[in-house]
Protein backbone atom coordinates (compact mmCIF):
# COMPACT_ATOMS: atom_id res chain seq x y z
CA UNK A 1 0.00 0.00 0.00
CA UNK A 2 2.15 2.78 -1.36
CA UNK A 3 1.73 6.41 -0.39
CA UNK A 4 1.26 8.28 -3.66
CA UNK A 5 0.81 11.84 -2.41
CA UNK A 6 0.82 13.57 0.94
CA UNK A 7 -0.53 16.86 2.20
CA UNK A 8 2.28 18.93 3.63
CA UNK A 9 0.53 20.76 6.43
CA UNK A 10 0.64 20.26 10.12
CA UNK A 11 -2.45 18.54 11.45
CA UNK A 12 -3.84 17.73 14.84
CA UNK A 13 -2.06 14.59 15.97
CA UNK A 14 -3.66 11.23 15.24
CA UNK A 15 -3.47 9.08 18.36
CA UNK A 16 -6.17 6.44 18.74
CA UNK A 17 -4.22 4.60 21.44
CA UNK A 18 -3.87 7.61 23.67
CA UNK A 19 -7.52 8.48 23.04
CA UNK A 20 -8.51 4.98 24.18
CA UNK A 21 -6.49 5.48 27.34
CA UNK A 22 -8.13 8.82 27.95
CA UNK A 23 -11.55 7.21 27.54
CA UNK A 24 -10.64 4.49 30.02
CA UNK A 25 -9.18 6.81 32.61
CA UNK A 26 -11.15 10.03 32.33
CA UNK A 27 -14.52 9.52 30.69
CA UNK A 28 -17.37 9.26 33.21
CA UNK A 29 -18.31 5.62 32.80
CA UNK A 30 -20.65 5.92 35.73
CA UNK A 31 -23.94 7.80 35.64
CA UNK A 32 -23.25 10.96 37.62
CA UNK A 33 -24.99 14.29 37.45
CA UNK A 34 -23.15 16.77 35.25
CA UNK A 35 -25.52 19.69 35.37
CA UNK A 36 -23.46 22.86 35.76
CA UNK A 37 -23.50 26.45 34.50
CA UNK A 38 -22.06 27.78 31.26
CA UNK A 39 -19.40 29.51 33.29
CA UNK A 40 -18.30 26.45 35.21
CA UNK A 41 -18.44 24.18 32.16
CA UNK A 42 -16.18 26.44 30.10
CA UNK A 43 -13.85 27.09 33.04
CA UNK A 44 -13.40 23.42 33.75
CA UNK A 45 -13.47 21.86 30.32
CA UNK A 46 -12.15 24.37 27.77
CA UNK A 47 -8.43 24.97 28.17
CA UNK A 48 -6.17 27.44 26.41
CA UNK A 49 -4.50 25.75 23.47
CA UNK A 50 -7.26 23.15 23.04
CA UNK A 51 -8.48 21.80 19.77
CA UNK A 52 -12.16 22.79 19.87
CA UNK A 53 -15.00 21.36 17.80
CA UNK A 54 -18.49 22.79 17.81
CA UNK A 55 -21.38 21.07 16.12
CA UNK A 56 -23.51 22.91 13.57
CA UNK A 57 -23.04 26.67 13.74
CA UNK A 58 -23.98 29.98 15.31
CA UNK A 59 -27.18 30.14 13.29
CA UNK A 60 -28.33 26.55 13.08
CA UNK A 61 -28.78 24.53 16.27
CA UNK A 62 -25.26 25.46 17.28
CA UNK A 63 -23.84 25.99 20.79
CA UNK A 64 -24.02 29.78 20.43
CA UNK A 65 -24.34 30.47 24.14
CA UNK A 66 -21.24 28.35 24.82
CA UNK A 67 -19.33 30.13 22.05
CA UNK A 68 -20.20 33.44 23.71
CA UNK A 69 -19.10 32.08 27.09
CA UNK A 70 -15.76 30.95 25.66
CA UNK A 71 -15.17 34.46 24.31
CA UNK A 72 -16.36 35.98 27.58
CA UNK A 73 -13.76 33.95 29.46
CA UNK A 74 -11.10 35.03 26.96
CA UNK A 75 -9.88 31.52 26.26
CA UNK A 76 -6.81 31.58 24.05
CA UNK A 77 -4.96 29.80 21.28
CA UNK A 78 -7.76 27.44 20.37
CA UNK A 79 -7.47 25.40 17.20
CA UNK A 80 -10.97 25.22 15.81
CA UNK A 81 -12.80 22.87 13.56
CA UNK A 82 -14.29 25.33 11.07
CA UNK A 83 -16.85 23.33 9.16
CA UNK A 84 -20.29 24.47 8.03
CA UNK A 85 -19.85 27.88 9.58
CA UNK A 86 -21.06 31.39 8.92
CA UNK A 87 -19.75 33.46 11.82
CA UNK A 88 -18.55 31.14 14.60
CA UNK A 89 -14.92 31.11 13.45
CA UNK A 90 -14.92 34.85 12.92
CA UNK A 91 -16.23 35.44 16.44
CA UNK A 92 -13.69 33.09 17.99
CA UNK A 93 -10.75 34.57 16.07
CA UNK A 94 -11.81 38.18 16.49
CA UNK A 95 -12.73 37.50 20.10
CA UNK A 96 -9.07 36.61 20.63
CA UNK A 97 -9.72 32.94 21.35
CA UNK A 98 -8.59 31.04 18.28
CA UNK A 99 -5.43 31.11 16.21
CA UNK A 100 -5.74 28.02 14.04
CA UNK A 101 -8.64 26.85 11.88
CA UNK A 102 -9.23 23.63 9.99
CA UNK A 103 -11.49 24.90 7.26
CA UNK A 104 -14.42 23.21 5.71
CA UNK A 105 -16.48 26.31 5.13
CA UNK A 106 -16.38 29.56 7.07
CA UNK A 107 -18.07 32.88 6.61
CA UNK A 108 -15.45 35.17 5.16
CA UNK A 109 -15.10 38.92 4.83
CA UNK A 110 -12.09 41.15 5.44
CA UNK A 111 -11.46 39.69 8.90
CA UNK A 112 -10.01 36.45 7.65
CA UNK A 113 -7.43 37.82 5.22
CA UNK A 114 -6.42 40.33 7.86
CA UNK A 115 -6.07 37.64 10.53
CA UNK A 116 -3.88 35.59 8.21
CA UNK A 117 -1.81 38.59 7.06
CA UNK A 118 -1.22 39.66 10.64
CA UNK A 119 -0.31 36.07 11.51
CA UNK A 120 -3.04 36.01 14.11
CA UNK A 121 -4.42 32.92 12.49
CA UNK A 122 -3.20 29.86 10.58
CA UNK A 123 -5.51 28.11 8.17
CA UNK A 124 -5.47 24.42 7.29
CA UNK A 125 -7.52 23.50 4.25
CA UNK A 126 -10.12 20.73 4.14
CA UNK A 127 -13.76 20.60 3.08
CA UNK A 128 -16.90 20.19 5.16
CA UNK A 129 -17.15 16.53 4.25
CA UNK A 130 -13.51 15.74 4.94
CA UNK A 131 -13.45 17.48 8.31
CA UNK A 132 -16.64 15.67 9.24
CA UNK A 133 -15.17 12.38 8.07
CA UNK A 134 -12.15 13.04 10.26
CA UNK A 135 -14.49 13.35 13.23
CA UNK A 136 -16.14 10.11 12.19
CA UNK A 137 -12.77 8.35 12.13
CA UNK A 138 -12.15 9.78 15.59
CA UNK A 139 -15.56 8.55 16.73
CA UNK A 140 -14.81 5.04 15.45
CA UNK A 141 -11.50 4.84 17.30
CA UNK A 142 -9.61 4.49 14.03
CA UNK A 143 -6.51 6.33 12.79
CA UNK A 144 -8.04 7.26 9.43
CA UNK A 145 -10.93 6.73 7.05
CA UNK A 146 -10.78 6.52 3.28
CA UNK A 147 -12.73 8.85 1.01
CA UNK A 148 -13.05 9.44 -2.70
CA UNK A 149 -13.16 13.21 -2.68
CA UNK A 150 -10.67 16.03 -1.98
CA UNK A 151 -7.83 14.54 -4.02
CA UNK A 152 -6.49 16.80 -6.74
CA UNK A 153 -7.44 20.02 -4.97
CA UNK A 154 -5.05 22.68 -3.75
CA UNK A 155 -6.55 22.15 -0.31
CA UNK A 156 -5.20 18.60 -0.30
CA UNK A 157 -1.63 19.88 -0.42
CA UNK A 158 -2.37 22.04 2.64
CA UNK A 159 -4.01 19.30 4.67
CA UNK A 160 -3.06 16.21 6.62
CA UNK A 161 -4.61 13.89 4.04
CA UNK A 162 -2.73 11.31 2.00
CA UNK A 163 -3.42 9.44 -1.20
CA UNK A 164 -2.39 5.80 -1.14
CA UNK A 165 -2.67 2.88 -3.49
CA UNK A 166 -5.71 0.94 -2.32
CA UNK A 167 -4.42 -2.61 -1.73
CA UNK A 168 -7.73 -4.03 -2.96
CA UNK A 169 -8.45 -2.19 -6.20
CA UNK A 170 -4.88 -0.94 -6.76
CA UNK A 171 -6.37 2.47 -7.49
CA UNK A 172 -5.51 5.70 -5.68
CA UNK A 173 -7.68 6.43 -2.67
CA UNK A 174 -7.62 9.29 -0.19
CA UNK A 175 -7.09 8.79 3.54
CA UNK A 176 -8.28 11.43 5.99
CA UNK A 177 -6.57 11.48 9.40
CA UNK A 178 -8.74 10.92 12.46
CA UNK A 179 -9.62 13.90 14.58
CA UNK A 180 -10.05 13.60 18.35
CA UNK A 181 -10.67 17.16 19.55
CA UNK A 182 -9.66 18.12 23.07
CA UNK A 183 -13.10 19.51 23.64
CA UNK A 184 -16.45 19.62 21.86
CA UNK A 185 -19.43 21.87 22.44
CA UNK A 186 -22.75 20.58 21.16
CA UNK A 187 -26.24 22.02 21.43
CA UNK A 188 -29.06 19.50 21.73
CA UNK A 189 -32.82 19.57 22.04
CA UNK A 190 -32.99 17.45 25.20
CA UNK A 191 -30.56 15.95 27.69
CA UNK A 192 -30.84 14.33 31.07
CA UNK A 193 -28.55 15.43 33.88
CA UNK A 194 -26.10 12.63 33.00
CA UNK A 195 -25.66 13.70 29.41
CA UNK A 196 -27.83 11.23 27.55
CA UNK A 197 -29.10 13.49 24.81
CA UNK A 198 -31.49 13.75 21.93
CA UNK A 199 -31.03 15.77 18.77
CA UNK A 200 -34.11 15.95 16.57
CA UNK A 201 -33.95 16.53 12.85
CA UNK A 202 -30.94 16.57 10.57
CA UNK A 203 -27.52 17.49 11.79
CA UNK A 204 -23.90 17.77 10.94
CA UNK A 205 -22.06 15.38 13.21
CA UNK A 206 -23.31 15.63 16.78
CA UNK A 207 -22.81 11.98 17.57
CA UNK A 208 -19.41 11.79 15.90
CA UNK A 209 -18.36 15.01 17.63
CA UNK A 210 -19.34 13.68 21.05
CA UNK A 211 -17.73 10.28 20.62
CA UNK A 212 -14.56 11.69 19.06
CA UNK A 213 -13.80 14.33 21.69
CA UNK A 214 -11.90 14.02 24.93
CA UNK A 215 -14.11 16.47 26.79
CA UNK A 216 -17.70 17.16 25.81
CA UNK A 217 -19.96 19.98 26.93
CA UNK A 218 -23.60 19.70 25.97
CA UNK A 219 -25.92 22.66 26.10
CA UNK A 220 -29.55 21.58 26.10
CA UNK A 221 -32.78 23.40 25.41
CA UNK A 222 -34.52 21.08 27.83
CA UNK A 223 -33.40 18.92 30.72
CA UNK A 224 -35.53 15.80 30.86
CA UNK A 225 -35.75 12.75 33.08
CA UNK A 226 -33.65 9.73 32.23
CA UNK A 227 -36.83 7.66 32.36
CA UNK A 228 -38.24 9.85 29.61
CA UNK A 229 -35.26 8.97 27.41
CA UNK A 230 -35.59 5.28 28.23
CA UNK A 231 -39.08 5.28 26.72
CA UNK A 232 -37.59 5.77 23.28
CA UNK A 233 -33.96 4.67 23.21
CA UNK A 234 -33.69 4.97 19.43
CA UNK A 235 -33.94 8.74 19.89
CA UNK A 236 -30.84 8.95 22.07
CA UNK A 237 -28.18 10.57 19.90
CA UNK A 238 -25.41 10.82 22.47
CA UNK A 239 -24.78 8.45 25.40
CA UNK A 240 -23.93 9.86 28.84
CA UNK A 241 -20.49 8.29 29.06
CA UNK A 242 -19.20 10.55 26.31
CA UNK A 243 -20.28 13.68 28.16
CA UNK A 244 -18.56 15.75 30.83
CA UNK A 245 -20.93 18.64 31.37
CA UNK A 246 -24.58 19.37 30.74
CA UNK A 247 -25.59 23.01 30.65
CA UNK A 248 -29.23 24.01 30.63
CA UNK A 249 -29.35 26.56 27.81
CA UNK A 250 -32.84 27.53 26.72
CA UNK A 251 -32.50 29.56 23.51
CA UNK A 252 -28.88 28.47 23.54
CA UNK A 253 -28.66 28.64 19.74
CA UNK A 254 -29.90 32.24 19.58
CA UNK A 255 -29.73 34.08 17.15
CA UNK A 256 -29.95 30.78 15.34
CA UNK A 257 -32.77 28.30 15.12
CA UNK A 258 -33.40 25.07 16.95
CA UNK A 259 -35.60 23.11 14.58
CA UNK A 260 -39.06 22.51 15.97
CA UNK A 261 -38.43 24.71 19.02
CA UNK A 262 -37.81 28.24 17.74
CA UNK A 263 -36.95 30.05 14.52
CA UNK A 264 -33.84 32.08 13.92
CA UNK A 265 -33.94 35.80 14.56
CA UNK A 266 -33.31 37.32 11.12
CA UNK A 267 -32.28 40.64 12.65
CA UNK A 268 -29.81 38.89 14.92
CA UNK A 269 -28.45 36.92 11.98
CA UNK A 270 -28.05 40.03 9.88
CA UNK A 271 -26.32 41.86 12.74
CA UNK A 272 -23.71 39.12 13.11
CA UNK A 273 -23.24 38.76 9.34
CA UNK A 274 -22.88 42.52 9.09
CA UNK A 275 -20.09 42.57 11.65
CA UNK A 276 -18.37 39.82 9.71
CA UNK A 277 -18.62 41.45 6.31
CA UNK A 278 -17.48 44.79 7.69
CA UNK A 279 -14.61 43.08 9.48
CA UNK A 280 -15.34 44.99 12.67
CA UNK A 281 -16.58 42.87 15.55
CA UNK A 282 -15.97 45.32 18.40
CA UNK A 283 -19.55 46.46 18.77
CA UNK A 284 -20.94 43.00 18.26
CA UNK A 285 -18.73 41.39 20.88
CA UNK A 286 -19.30 44.19 23.34
CA UNK A 287 -23.07 44.00 23.04
CA UNK A 288 -23.56 40.26 22.71
CA UNK A 289 -20.74 38.90 24.84
CA UNK A 290 -19.02 41.26 27.21
CA UNK A 291 -21.93 43.46 28.27
CA UNK A 292 -23.37 40.59 30.29
CA UNK A 293 -22.02 38.01 32.71
CA UNK A 294 -24.09 35.01 31.68
CA UNK A 295 -26.43 33.50 29.13
CA UNK A 296 -29.34 34.16 31.47
CA UNK A 297 -28.45 37.83 31.69
CA UNK A 298 -28.00 37.93 27.92
CA UNK A 299 -31.51 36.62 27.33
CA UNK A 300 -32.91 39.02 29.92
CA UNK A 301 -31.11 42.21 28.97
CA UNK A 302 -29.95 41.93 25.37
CA UNK A 303 -32.49 39.66 23.69
CA UNK A 304 -35.54 40.23 25.86
CA UNK A 305 -38.67 38.22 26.48
CA UNK A 306 -40.55 39.72 23.56
CA UNK A 307 -38.00 38.44 21.06
CA UNK A 308 -37.95 35.02 22.66
CA UNK A 309 -41.69 34.76 22.42
CA UNK A 310 -41.57 35.95 18.82
CA UNK A 311 -38.99 33.38 17.64
CA UNK A 312 -40.87 30.63 19.40
CA UNK A 313 -44.06 31.72 17.71
CA UNK A 314 -42.35 31.88 14.33
CA UNK A 315 -41.36 28.22 14.55
CA UNK A 316 -44.63 26.65 13.43
CA UNK A 317 -43.44 23.13 12.69
CA UNK A 318 -43.44 20.34 15.28
CA UNK A 319 -43.54 17.17 13.22
CA UNK A 320 -40.48 15.06 13.86
CA UNK A 321 -39.12 17.28 16.63
CA UNK A 322 -40.51 15.51 19.65
CA UNK A 323 -40.27 12.00 20.93
Amino acid at each position, binding site marked *: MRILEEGKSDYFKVAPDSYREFVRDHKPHRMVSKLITHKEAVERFVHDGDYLAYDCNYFQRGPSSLIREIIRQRKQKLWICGKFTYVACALLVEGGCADRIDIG*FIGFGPWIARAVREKKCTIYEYSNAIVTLRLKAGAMGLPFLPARSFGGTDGFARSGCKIVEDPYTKKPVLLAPALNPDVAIIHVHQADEYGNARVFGTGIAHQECALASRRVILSAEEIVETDELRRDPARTSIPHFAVDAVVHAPFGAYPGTVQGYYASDPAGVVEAMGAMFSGDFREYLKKHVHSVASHEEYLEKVVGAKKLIEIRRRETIREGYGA
Partner: protein
Amino acid sequence: MSTPATHFNEREFVICQISRLVEDRYVYWVGGGGEPLSSVLLAKRTTAPNLQYLTEDGVVGPEALVPFDPLMTMISSRANYRALQWGTMNYAADLAHLGYVDYGILATLQVDRYGNINSTVVGKYAGGEGRRFGGPGGADSIAALAWRTILVTDQQKRKFVERVDFISSPGFLDGPGARERHGLPPNTGPWRVYTPWAMYGYGDDCQMMLQAIAPFVTVEQVLEELSFRPALAAKIEVLEVPTEEELLVLRSQIDVGGQVTDRGRWIELKDGQYQLVQA
Protein backbone atom coordinates in the same frame (compact mmCIF):
# COMPACT_ATOMS: atom_id res chain seq x y z
CA MET B 1 -49.02 26.92 -20.36
CA SER B 2 -45.85 28.29 -21.87
CA THR B 3 -45.76 31.98 -22.55
CA PRO B 4 -42.32 33.47 -23.18
CA ALA B 5 -41.74 36.24 -20.67
CA THR B 6 -40.96 39.74 -21.78
CA HIS B 7 -39.30 41.10 -18.65
CA PHE B 8 -36.98 39.24 -16.31
CA ASN B 9 -33.54 39.56 -14.85
CA GLU B 10 -30.29 37.70 -15.38
CA ARG B 11 -30.65 35.68 -12.22
CA GLU B 12 -34.16 34.58 -13.09
CA PHE B 13 -32.96 33.63 -16.54
CA VAL B 14 -30.25 31.32 -15.27
CA ILE B 15 -32.43 29.71 -12.61
CA CYS B 16 -35.02 28.85 -15.26
CA GLN B 17 -32.35 27.33 -17.51
CA ILE B 18 -31.12 24.98 -14.82
CA SER B 19 -34.60 24.19 -13.61
CA ARG B 20 -35.40 22.77 -17.04
CA LEU B 21 -32.53 20.29 -16.83
CA VAL B 22 -33.92 18.85 -13.70
CA GLU B 23 -36.00 15.74 -14.19
CA ASP B 24 -38.20 13.67 -11.94
CA ARG B 25 -36.19 10.54 -12.13
CA TYR B 26 -32.94 11.67 -10.66
CA VAL B 27 -31.49 12.35 -7.25
CA TYR B 28 -29.79 15.69 -6.86
CA TRP B 29 -27.40 17.14 -4.40
CA VAL B 30 -27.79 20.86 -4.06
CA GLY B 31 -25.39 23.42 -2.65
CA GLY B 32 -26.29 25.58 0.32
CA GLY B 33 -28.89 27.82 -1.30
CA GLY B 34 -28.95 30.49 -3.97
CA GLU B 35 -29.47 29.59 -7.61
CA PRO B 36 -28.94 25.83 -7.21
CA LEU B 37 -31.66 25.36 -4.63
CA SER B 38 -33.98 27.83 -6.37
CA SER B 39 -33.62 25.90 -9.62
CA VAL B 40 -34.55 22.65 -7.96
CA LEU B 41 -37.46 24.14 -6.04
CA LEU B 42 -38.72 25.71 -9.28
CA ALA B 43 -38.52 22.42 -11.14
CA LYS B 44 -40.36 20.66 -8.32
CA ARG B 45 -43.19 23.16 -8.68
CA THR B 46 -43.29 23.09 -12.48
CA THR B 47 -41.97 20.23 -14.57
CA ALA B 48 -40.76 17.70 -11.99
CA PRO B 49 -43.13 17.39 -9.03
CA ASN B 50 -41.64 14.10 -7.83
CA LEU B 51 -38.05 15.24 -7.98
CA GLN B 52 -36.05 14.49 -4.87
CA TYR B 53 -32.97 16.21 -3.66
CA LEU B 54 -30.41 15.77 -0.94
CA THR B 55 -28.65 18.46 0.98
CA GLU B 56 -25.42 18.49 2.89
CA ASP B 57 -27.11 17.96 6.27
CA GLY B 58 -28.49 14.64 5.12
CA VAL B 59 -32.07 15.57 4.29
CA VAL B 60 -33.56 13.24 1.67
CA GLY B 61 -36.52 14.31 -0.43
CA PRO B 62 -38.06 17.13 1.59
CA GLU B 63 -41.25 18.97 0.72
CA ALA B 64 -39.64 22.28 1.63
CA LEU B 65 -41.87 25.12 2.76
CA VAL B 66 -40.71 28.31 1.08
CA PRO B 67 -39.74 31.03 1.68
CA PHE B 68 -36.95 30.38 4.17
CA ASP B 69 -35.57 32.83 6.69
CA PRO B 70 -32.19 34.26 5.62
CA LEU B 71 -29.50 31.53 5.48
CA MET B 72 -31.95 28.91 6.77
CA THR B 73 -31.48 26.49 3.87
CA MET B 74 -30.28 23.59 6.03
CA ILE B 75 -30.92 22.26 9.57
CA SER B 76 -34.13 24.24 9.65
CA SER B 77 -37.68 23.02 9.89
CA ARG B 78 -38.99 24.69 6.73
CA ALA B 79 -36.14 23.55 4.50
CA ASN B 80 -36.35 20.00 5.84
CA TYR B 81 -40.13 19.75 6.05
CA ARG B 82 -41.75 16.36 5.50
CA ALA B 83 -38.62 14.73 4.18
CA LEU B 84 -38.45 11.04 3.37
CA GLN B 85 -35.45 10.70 5.64
CA TRP B 86 -33.28 12.80 7.90
CA GLY B 87 -29.61 12.05 8.29
CA THR B 88 -26.37 13.87 8.91
CA MET B 89 -23.49 15.18 6.86
CA ASN B 90 -21.62 11.89 6.81
CA TYR B 91 -24.78 10.14 5.64
CA ALA B 92 -25.09 12.57 2.72
CA ALA B 93 -21.46 11.88 1.86
CA ASP B 94 -22.10 8.13 1.96
CA LEU B 95 -24.93 8.47 -0.56
CA ALA B 96 -22.70 10.56 -2.79
CA HIS B 97 -19.88 8.03 -2.56
CA LEU B 98 -22.33 5.30 -3.54
CA GLY B 99 -23.24 7.04 -6.78
CA TYR B 100 -26.80 8.05 -5.85
CA VAL B 101 -26.17 11.69 -6.73
CA ASP B 102 -26.90 12.04 -10.42
CA TYR B 103 -26.43 15.77 -10.53
CA GLY B 104 -24.70 18.18 -8.24
CA ILE B 105 -25.58 21.83 -8.67
CA LEU B 106 -23.08 24.41 -7.48
CA ALA B 107 -22.77 28.16 -7.49
CA THR B 108 -19.13 29.09 -7.95
CA LEU B 109 -16.91 32.09 -7.47
CA GLN B 110 -14.28 31.38 -10.11
CA VAL B 111 -13.99 28.61 -12.67
CA ASP B 112 -11.35 27.66 -15.20
CA ARG B 113 -11.07 25.99 -18.57
CA TYR B 114 -11.12 22.53 -16.93
CA GLY B 115 -14.05 23.33 -14.71
CA ASN B 116 -11.96 23.60 -11.58
CA ILE B 117 -13.67 25.63 -8.89
CA ASN B 118 -12.18 28.26 -6.64
CA SER B 119 -14.02 29.33 -3.51
CA THR B 120 -10.95 29.80 -1.33
CA VAL B 121 -8.84 32.74 -2.44
CA VAL B 122 -8.68 35.16 -5.33
CA GLY B 123 -5.11 36.30 -5.75
CA LYS B 124 -2.09 34.98 -3.97
CA TYR B 125 -2.64 32.30 -1.31
CA ALA B 126 0.56 32.71 0.67
CA GLY B 127 0.65 35.25 3.46
CA GLY B 128 -3.03 36.07 3.22
CA GLU B 129 -2.41 38.53 0.39
CA GLY B 130 -5.29 37.43 -1.80
CA ARG B 131 -8.93 38.00 -1.10
CA ARG B 132 -10.01 35.11 1.03
CA PHE B 133 -13.36 33.31 0.68
CA GLY B 134 -15.09 30.61 2.65
CA GLY B 135 -13.44 27.43 1.37
CA PRO B 136 -14.97 24.49 -0.47
CA GLY B 137 -17.69 23.77 2.07
CA GLY B 138 -19.84 21.00 0.67
CA ALA B 139 -18.89 21.72 -2.93
CA ASP B 140 -15.78 19.55 -2.87
CA SER B 141 -17.73 16.36 -2.31
CA ILE B 142 -20.41 17.32 -4.82
CA ALA B 143 -17.80 18.10 -7.46
CA ALA B 144 -15.92 14.90 -6.70
CA LEU B 145 -18.76 12.44 -6.30
CA ALA B 146 -21.83 13.53 -8.29
CA TRP B 147 -22.02 11.89 -11.69
CA ARG B 148 -22.54 15.22 -13.37
CA THR B 149 -21.85 18.63 -11.94
CA ILE B 150 -23.73 21.71 -13.07
CA LEU B 151 -21.96 24.96 -12.23
CA VAL B 152 -23.58 28.36 -12.02
CA THR B 153 -21.65 31.60 -12.04
CA ASP B 154 -21.64 35.08 -13.50
CA GLN B 155 -20.39 35.84 -17.01
CA GLN B 156 -17.45 37.96 -15.95
CA LYS B 157 -13.87 37.92 -17.16
CA ARG B 158 -12.52 37.60 -13.60
CA LYS B 159 -14.71 34.59 -12.95
CA PHE B 160 -13.70 32.65 -16.07
CA VAL B 161 -9.96 32.24 -15.88
CA GLU B 162 -7.39 30.08 -17.62
CA ARG B 163 -6.40 28.58 -14.29
CA VAL B 164 -8.12 29.22 -10.99
CA ASP B 165 -5.97 30.73 -8.27
CA PHE B 166 -6.80 27.81 -5.99
CA ILE B 167 -8.57 24.55 -6.77
CA SER B 168 -11.06 24.31 -3.93
CA SER B 169 -13.23 21.71 -5.62
CA PRO B 170 -12.17 19.56 -8.53
CA GLY B 171 -13.15 20.02 -12.12
CA PHE B 172 -11.13 17.98 -14.59
CA LEU B 173 -7.95 19.23 -12.84
CA ASP B 174 -5.45 19.28 -15.73
CA GLY B 175 -7.19 17.06 -18.19
CA PRO B 176 -8.23 13.50 -19.04
CA GLY B 177 -7.40 10.91 -16.36
CA ALA B 178 -6.33 13.47 -13.76
CA ARG B 179 -9.35 12.97 -11.50
CA GLU B 180 -8.79 9.22 -11.33
CA ARG B 181 -5.09 9.69 -10.62
CA HIS B 182 -6.04 11.69 -7.54
CA GLY B 183 -8.49 9.12 -6.21
CA LEU B 184 -11.79 10.48 -7.53
CA PRO B 185 -14.30 8.05 -9.04
CA PRO B 186 -14.24 7.65 -12.83
CA ASN B 187 -16.80 9.09 -15.24
CA THR B 188 -17.61 12.03 -13.04
CA GLY B 189 -16.94 15.73 -13.41
CA PRO B 190 -18.27 19.04 -14.70
CA TRP B 191 -21.07 18.66 -17.19
CA ARG B 192 -22.49 22.13 -17.76
CA VAL B 193 -21.57 25.64 -16.75
CA TYR B 194 -24.40 28.16 -16.75
CA THR B 195 -24.18 31.90 -16.61
CA PRO B 196 -26.93 34.43 -17.26
CA TRP B 197 -25.45 34.80 -20.74
CA ALA B 198 -24.35 31.37 -21.81
CA MET B 199 -24.15 27.64 -21.38
CA TYR B 200 -20.95 25.60 -21.71
CA GLY B 201 -20.31 21.90 -21.94
CA TYR B 202 -17.15 19.79 -22.01
CA GLY B 203 -15.48 17.91 -24.82
CA ASP B 204 -13.45 14.71 -24.59
CA ASP B 205 -10.43 16.86 -23.90
CA CYS B 206 -12.12 17.95 -20.66
CA GLN B 207 -12.07 21.58 -21.77
CA MET B 208 -14.90 24.04 -21.69
CA MET B 209 -16.93 24.53 -24.88
CA LEU B 210 -19.44 27.30 -25.51
CA GLN B 211 -22.66 25.58 -26.54
CA ALA B 212 -25.39 28.17 -26.25
CA ILE B 213 -25.99 31.81 -25.53
CA ALA B 214 -28.84 33.91 -24.24
CA PRO B 215 -30.95 35.73 -26.86
CA PHE B 216 -29.95 39.10 -25.45
CA VAL B 217 -26.22 38.76 -26.06
CA THR B 218 -23.90 37.85 -28.92
CA VAL B 219 -21.14 35.26 -28.97
CA GLU B 220 -18.67 38.14 -29.09
CA GLN B 221 -20.10 39.72 -25.96
CA VAL B 222 -19.82 36.40 -24.18
CA LEU B 223 -16.25 35.80 -25.29
CA GLU B 224 -15.35 39.29 -24.07
CA GLU B 225 -16.30 38.10 -20.60
CA LEU B 226 -13.93 35.19 -20.42
CA SER B 227 -10.23 35.58 -19.83
CA PHE B 228 -9.53 32.53 -21.98
CA ARG B 229 -10.98 31.44 -25.28
CA PRO B 230 -13.18 28.34 -24.90
CA ALA B 231 -13.84 25.91 -27.71
CA LEU B 232 -16.95 26.77 -29.69
CA ALA B 233 -19.59 24.20 -30.56
CA ALA B 234 -20.17 23.67 -34.26
CA LYS B 235 -23.56 25.30 -33.81
CA ILE B 236 -24.12 27.73 -30.97
CA GLU B 237 -27.71 27.35 -29.78
CA VAL B 238 -29.85 30.15 -28.41
CA LEU B 239 -31.30 29.54 -24.94
CA GLU B 240 -35.02 29.95 -24.43
CA VAL B 241 -36.18 32.76 -22.19
CA PRO B 242 -38.14 32.12 -18.99
CA THR B 243 -41.86 31.60 -19.33
CA GLU B 244 -44.38 33.71 -17.49
CA GLU B 245 -45.45 30.59 -15.65
CA GLU B 246 -41.94 29.91 -14.37
CA LEU B 247 -41.47 33.48 -13.28
CA LEU B 248 -44.79 33.51 -11.46
CA VAL B 249 -43.78 30.50 -9.39
CA LEU B 250 -40.27 31.80 -8.83
CA ARG B 251 -41.38 35.25 -7.73
CA SER B 252 -44.50 34.34 -5.79
CA GLN B 253 -43.44 31.10 -4.13
CA ILE B 254 -39.70 30.57 -4.11
CA ASP B 255 -37.84 33.83 -3.88
CA VAL B 256 -40.54 36.07 -2.54
CA GLY B 257 -38.10 38.31 -0.69
CA GLY B 258 -35.73 38.50 -3.64
CA GLN B 259 -32.85 37.08 -1.63
CA VAL B 260 -31.57 35.12 -4.59
CA THR B 261 -32.81 36.95 -7.65
CA ASP B 262 -32.51 40.55 -6.59
CA ARG B 263 -29.14 40.98 -8.29
CA GLY B 264 -28.12 41.29 -11.91
CA ARG B 265 -29.40 43.30 -14.82
CA TRP B 266 -32.87 43.25 -16.31
CA ILE B 267 -33.80 42.04 -19.76
CA GLU B 268 -36.81 43.13 -21.74
CA LEU B 269 -38.41 42.33 -25.04
CA LYS B 270 -38.20 45.47 -27.13
CA ASP B 271 -38.82 45.76 -30.84
CA GLY B 272 -39.03 41.96 -31.06
CA GLN B 273 -35.58 41.63 -29.53
CA TYR B 274 -34.53 40.64 -26.02
CA GLN B 275 -32.25 43.35 -24.77
CA LEU B 276 -30.30 44.08 -21.61
CA VAL B 277 -31.81 47.12 -19.98
CA GLN B 278 -29.14 49.77 -19.60
CA ALA B 279 -28.62 50.70 -15.97
